[in-house]
């Protein structure tokens, strides 16, 4: 049994400690907002926050989350997150939507540490997240929009 804290709630899960956090969240805890895209840490669809830091859920063994605060897309509620989601809504960023949980988790983490990101900051923080619908221009605009609303 592994004890995890996800979105402020504690869960005891019966999984091998090397099971990726992504699959524990999706298949065991039942939070399916975090997505599987590549399984090799190359697409960012599985991005979650571990103690506020964005990590790839597919590359993070469940054991690495013991004692940490895990936050998923379902657990976003602070001011930065609300600003990001509002900007996504205002600009209608999404298309198929499958990558957007990961995009939003990366964007929230960026704005949490940098309230005025430049385009280069956005490139650095967001280039680990693939969007095959190529909503990148709107993601960029939405991050600037969220930054403005947080100022």
């Amino acid at each position: 049994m592994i004890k995890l804290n996800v979105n402020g709630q504690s869960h005891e899960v019966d999984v091998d400690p090397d099971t990726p956090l992504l699959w524990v969240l999706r298949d065991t805890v039942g939070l399916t907002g975090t997505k599987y895209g590549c399984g090799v840490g190359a697409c960012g669809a599985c991005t979650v926050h571990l103690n506020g830091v964005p990590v790839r859920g597919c590359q993070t063994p469940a054991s690495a989350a013991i004692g940490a605060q895990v936050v998923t897309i379902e657990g976003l509620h602070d001011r930065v997150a609300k600003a990001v989601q509002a900007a996504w809504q205002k600009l209608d960023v999404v298309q198929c939507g499958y990558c957007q949980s990961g995009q939003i988790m990366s964007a929230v983490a960026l704005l949490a540490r940098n309230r005025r990101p430049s385009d280069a900051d956005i490139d650095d923080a967001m280039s680990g997240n693939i969007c095959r619908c190529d909503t990148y221009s709107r993601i960029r605009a939405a991050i600037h929009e969220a930054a403005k609303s947080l100022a």
Partner: protein
Amino acid sequence: MNDIRIENESRRRFLQAGLGLTLGIYLAPRVVFAGVGEDPHAEAFEPNAFVRIDTDNTVTVISKHLEMGEGTYTGLSTLVAEELDAAWEQVRVEGAPADATRYANLFLGSQLTGGSTAIANSFEQMRRAGATARAMLVAAAAQRWHVPADTISVRQGMVVHAGTKHKATFGDLAVAAAKLPVPEHVTLKDPKQFIYIGKRFPRKDTSAKINGSAIFTQDIKLPGMLVAVVAHPPLFGAKVKSFDAQRAKAVRGVADVVAIPSGVAVLAPDFWTAKKGRDMLSVDWDESGALRLGTNEILAQFRELAATPGAVARSDGNAGQAVAQAAKHLEADYEFPYLAHAPMEPLNCVVKLGADGCEIWNGEQSQTSDQHAVAAVLGIKPEQVKINMLYAGGSYGRRASKDNDYVVEAVHIARAINGRAPVKLVWTREDDMRAGHYRPMYLHRMACGLDDKGTLVAWQHRIVGQSIMAGTGFESRMVKNGVDATSVEGAHNLPYAIQNVMVDLHSPTLQVPVQWWRSVGSSHTAFAVETFLDAAAHAAGQDPLQFRRALLAKHPRHLGVLDLAARKAGWGTPLAGTKAGERRGRGIALHKSFNTYVAQVAEVTVRPGGRFTVDRVVCAVDCGIGVNPDVIRAQMEGGIGFGLSAALYGEITLRDGEVEKSNFPAYPVVRMREMPRVDVHIVESQEKPTGVGEPGVPPIAPAVANALFAATGQRLHKLPLRLA
């Protein structure tokens, strides 16, 4: 204006929602799980198969088309809301069940989302659905208030009689309206009266997609469900000879290991356990009938074919002779690789077998075809295959599988365990990328001739590559006299006025499964035509824009987008400054696909060593009446990014028959830092709406290649683009 006969759709209770919670599914408001149980819409008003109005004042639009990102749910809602005069906020969307008698694509004849037709084929149908519902609500109000129907108005979801100050919501009138006959005729609005069409309204799927609640196939969890991960053959055409499941079964949690026609499936209650089991399998493959070629050998075969005449797709005048006699002539070969669709959601499918048939949960793009294929496997009737259409995490053509591969695989697995549990088949990214169904590889051989005044007088275009339509239900319609229309589209119908034109085709057969990929034939023909034409302009000593304009006198819509893109891009003005060692260039390309006209101007910066960036793309689009301009813009932006991934990186290679690329590190795609600024301009039009999902893709690669030529003088003949 239009007085149109209404199809008298029978009132049927075809959707029964709410079961999701009972099944323990994370239920998003927009996802409907069909099945048995209480009918929460018992009081609802369903004037036709596309609209339901509940007593709680919700208007539900039933979408016959898949929402895979291209904005269909929003577009179809717009059409209904327009004629119904609903308030945008009261409109929600549900995916339609599989039933071609009611939900066929009117252009394609079966229930299918593809060919950029969702809005185009539904434009009148969905408006009529809205207008019919409106007429019945008005009739119900007229009866209730004892006033003539034509003195009643409807605005923003309120039915109002100004004279008596009576007012009612749709919900108030739903029960009464449901008892009335369906009107035979309804009048649709004149475009001048449009309040929704042509304006930006927010997408219907945004809310659920920004908080994790949108349900994709990957997210379905049914009681007792097992997840299946499959070991597939390492080569196209290989089969299972034998397998040893002992080590797989020893993995804690593995529930079963079964052989199926396409490999060996390992089942477990969760994905990770099933995958661990799959990785422990040892399978002995029968590779006797397998493809052993590499892409280099395939290309060599294509070159041999290109030396011989093919099946003729178009022949005007005598192109061969005209090229030979021309004052100046050009020749070039173009090479295009296999491409994977690589949607963000790797392929997956949920199947539950029952006494009455089979139920499927899927980002379903091709209901009718899948129903028939599944029915054939199970020995049941197609209508016994119930399909729940969920959001698809991208597709770009892949989920409309031409041989129903992944859906049928899921059904085989469910059958192999005798239907004792529902099965969710999950492909890993590697499974997805190695499974073929690629955009075919092509070789184009081109020649053209210019007269002594620099006029283009001859054009020869030979294409070599696998037929996509061969062996599909579309073959009889799409393949004529040895010419698969999707192999030559964009080439045989090039708009430029050239006296002598020859387009011919070789369609060799290979074991690599190929399929339609966003923009299909235009994904390669546009590149060959538009870069070769650019080379001809250069050889004639003319500006590429003016050279094109002179050949387009009879094509005002082509000219319209070409001129608009050129003007907005500042064609002919110098590009802003460069740093030392950098060279900049601007390129233009024009292409009509799926009846939509798109021109793009790309600006590039080339750095020392040949690395380059695409800085900005100006895009002009003419898709007739623009139902939602913001969705059109989004599709152009997305199409440009998608086409740019192919232009910069896309390439599936084979070595000794084995697919060498299986995940994003080896098959890169455009990321945030490579995405150019995109400016989209939409031509005002009163023509019928045409599609936007695909037409943004074709012009970007040639526009970039032409810009690279302008910057460096290098002509590139091969995708992906590599400067020397």
